[in-house]
């Protein structure tokens, strides 16, 4: 599903942020990406979300080379990846329903389909009944679940999460991780960047460890 082949990333003036990173995530696999601050976790995620392009090597998503993607193809490739953020990135002036519906509206779904899928997605994360609420009145854990509902509403084959539990207490964090496992069970490939070592250790999944831009454990 996701393949890194000798990927290096160099920022002008900052040197190599990633050096010869290679790994392969199978379809339906769940993995954690860990490492100290500045190890290159965010950069690696940015390469998958096509926010950055790698300097050397090759990134393959679902068999397609992201290096070769033209600018106008980028939006369509991004629709294959559901993104989840530490700060949730919800639109505060839109309801929960509208936030979750955004990827579907962008993809051009009809009204009924949008409604049906948003409800299904909110049901999945346990927020059915809160469609009309605004994000500000929800707790941190609920807001993150809205973020997850938005990421999965378009049924992408891959989910990327950047420190999804960074702002949550351990109990809520465990709940969120459990939710990710449920998606994995239905075949979604999941990559979660986190430095919550104790949480990661509890869960029995593959761990990709970055150290100064190099993959030291996989």
């Amino acid at each position, binding site marked *: 599903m996701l393949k890194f082949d000798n990927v290096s990333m160099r920022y002008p003036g900052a040197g190599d942020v990633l050096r010869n990173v290679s790994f392969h995530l199978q379809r339906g696999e769940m993995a954690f990406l860990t490492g100290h601050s500045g190890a290159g976790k965010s950069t690696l995620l940015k390469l998958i979300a096509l926010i950055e392009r790698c300097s050397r090597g090759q990134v393959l998503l679902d068999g397609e080379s992201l290096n070769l993607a033209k600018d106008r193809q980028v939006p369509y490739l991004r629709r294959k990846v559901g993104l989840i953020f530490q700060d949730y*990135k919800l639109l505060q002036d839109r309801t929960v329903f509208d936030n979750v519906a955004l990827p579907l*509206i962008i*993809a051009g779904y009809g009204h009924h389909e949008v409604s049906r899928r948003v409800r299904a997605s909110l049901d999945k994360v346990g927020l059915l009944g809160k469609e009309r609420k605004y994000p500000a009145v929800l707790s941190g854990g609920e807001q993150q679940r809205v973020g997850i509902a938005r990421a999965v509403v378009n049924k992408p084959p891959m989910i990327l999460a950047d420190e999804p539990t960074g702002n949550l207490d351990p109990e809520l964090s465990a709940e969120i991780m459990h939710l990710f496992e449920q998606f994995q069970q*239905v075949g979604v490939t999941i990559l979660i960047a986190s430095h919550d070592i104790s949480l990661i250790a509890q869960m029995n999944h593959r761990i990709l460890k970055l150290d100064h831009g190099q993959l030291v454990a996989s």
Partner: protein
Amino acid sequence: MKHINKKSVKQEPRWQTKISGGNFVDKFHAYRNHHAQALFSSLGRLVASRFSSAMTIIVLAIAISLASGFYILVANLQQLAGNLEASNQISLFIKDEISEARVNKFANSIRQNSDIQEVKLITKEQALEEFQSYSGFGEAIKALDKNPLPVVIQVLPKNSLENEQALEALLDDFKRSAEVDFAQMDMQWVKRLQSIMEVARRGVTLLSLLLGAGVLFITANTIRLELYNRRDEVVIAKLVGATNGFIHRPFLYSGFWIGFFSGVTAWFIVTTIMLILKQPIETLSRLYDNAFHMLFLGFAETLALLFISSLLGVVGSWIVLHFQLQQLKPE
């Protein structure tokens, strides 16, 4: 059981079904709905921030009304000048002491000139008759005991004599003739007026271009601010796979509304000013035998005004989107 197995092998996992859904008709409806939604939500945002919207629109409307006001002013002046045909006709006023026979001889000599197309002799009596019927001073003339009008020879040079210098030379020749008291090119002032009108027309065109550019950049700056205020939304939409077209749409509609409402406001400004001026101008026109009818912004001109101002709004926002959206990169 076998059947189910076969199906489960072939089928993609449940979460990996196709990325874009719905059939073509659904998609078309969704696309149309999104356009309508962008059209009305941008209008809604304009209304929500009505104070700043109103200020922007009034500034734009003043610029647009200046351009269209000057346009209609020139159109009115042109109508005035357009009634007058410029010809190169020259009038020769013959000295009083010249005898009729000598005048005829002089007229004939002019007819021989190869540059002359037509010569018309107006006797003192004909001149008096004409003057009495057209000038409105008939009674006053009758009171005089002697006809004060001179004999006039009207000379029309050939059309080939377009050249101003050749005409001037001809005029100078006539002025030097012993028989001629005074020679003048009748319609020279019309030519001068037409030249002035040409200058005014160009001036208005240039001014309109300048004001149009002003409208373009004011709209661009307004949209830039809106883009800045909504940058979170833009970044999130980009991250969940929005195309540039999807992101551009509401901003282009905002530009359209700003331009459109500025055009409407400008139309009201120009029309109000003209209604205020209408009465004194009509009074003035009556004093000149109703020679002048005031022109307002017509239907076609109003449409053009609205079209151009809306277009400037859309183009202004397109410029900003084209150059600024690249900078709004997701983090």
